């Protein structure tokens, strides 16, 4: 399983480095949306709930672009058939694609979060940005698992660009709520409140439940 996941990941990272189809698109989209919020909200700077909501809506919408393209090479270039003919555990594809999407999200956030702080955050409201890492990791894990499931479903349809967001966004609503709630106290001007453990637990539970669900159903998604 580890060998197969490694082979799939190595192949996918190479494909992304050659084509630059996913991460740059997600990144440009994120920064564009942050710029739009910057001008559209007619506020000089944000903090707390509003800042948190803006950040997570932006990241969630950007993640949909990654989900949309996650399985395109497999479908268009016969990757599914090549993989299905190999004597390997099919769950390896789920794990590899979820890790890949997780990696895409981390790469985007490395630039989008500082850009968010620069464009929208009230000076002094970003003291707890390092603590934000825990929220980002847990939320990204949930987005990656659900995104992989939805991406695998969507790529089989002609209306992939429509189906993926229509399925993913409602499924990811709990992630959006929990991540925004967990992040809001970290973005207060008067000094960050402690990281709310309750919302981190919600994110961890979501990740566990959808991780198990994905493990259970992914095989069936690969059937014709």
């Amino acid at each position, binding site marked *: 399983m580890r060998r197969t996941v490694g082979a799939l990941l190595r*192949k996918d990272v*190479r494909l992304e480095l050659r084509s630059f189809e996913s991460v740059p698109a997600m990144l440009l989209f994120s920064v564009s949306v942050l710029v739009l919020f910057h001008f559209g909200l007619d506020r000089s700077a944000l903090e707390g709930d509003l800042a948190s909501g803006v950040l997570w809506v932006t990241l969630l919408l950007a993640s949909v672009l990654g989900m949309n393209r996650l399985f395109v090479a497999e479908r268009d270039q016969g990757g599914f058939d090549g993989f*299905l*003919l190999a004597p390997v555990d099919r769950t390896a594809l789920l794990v590899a694609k979820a890790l890949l999407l997780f990696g895409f999200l981390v790469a985007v956030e490395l630039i989008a979060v500082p850009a968010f702080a620069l464009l929208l955050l009230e000076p002094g409201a970003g003291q707890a940005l390092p603590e934000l890492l825990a929220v980002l990791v847990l939320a990204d894990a949930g987005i990656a698992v659900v995104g992989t499931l939805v991406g695998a479903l969507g790529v089989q349809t002609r209306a992939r660009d429509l189906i993926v967001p229509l399925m993913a966004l409602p499924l990811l609503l709990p992630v959006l709520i929990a991540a925004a709630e967990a992040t809001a106290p970290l973005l207060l001007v008067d000094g960050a409140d402690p990281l709310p453990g309750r919302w981190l637990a919600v994110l961890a539970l979501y990740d566990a439940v959808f991780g198990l669900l994905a493990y259970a159903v992914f095989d069936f998604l690969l059937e014709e």
Partner: protein
Amino acid sequence: MAPAAAAEPAAVALEGVGRAYGERVVLRDVSLELAPGETLAVFGANGAGKTTLLRILAGLLRPHAGRAVVLGAALPREGWKVRGRIGLLAHEPLLYRDLTVHENLAFHARLHGVPLERAVALVEQVGLGARAGDPVRTLSRGMTQRAAICRAVLHEPDLLLLDEPLANLDPGGAGAVAPLIGREAGPARVLISHDAEQGLAEADRVLGLRGGRAAIAAAAADVTLADVRGLYA
């Protein structure tokens, strides 16, 4: 007297296999048997059901009717038993266009647990050594076909499913791949071809499809060129 060894299962055994896409039936009531090491030539006009048959044999499509047993495994229920024992050369090369030939073959070698040296040797054997480091999208069709053949035989399958394997190959290319996919390669073969003469020459058994039905299902010795050409009339 020593007990007789257990008989080797047929490479392919189909009984009344059928398949539809929605309301459109593309394959109906196809039965055949192919022994290990034998070659089945499949003929038929476009849309006759040849590719659908090949995908059923590869375990990539589920038959909607009948029973399909490949290398002793009933498909699709026991498909996991024969994954890795089937080599498929389809219309599409099943290669990633942005990866090099070597990267593609190394990827499939890892999936199949095959040493990378075998991939390197195959690439040299088909005359692609000088282009092994080039992305597949930069190769000509013939070169891509050679790379696809390397992928299909990389894991030394027991059953080769070949959809017009010599398409796009020049005589030199065809000669280079012959030891890999020709009769001398060893495994049972299902060979889709529009070249009736060559297909008949290579076959032990013949399946001629017309409108998804088996219009011909016989030993190659009992089939004439006229019979095959009649499928396209």
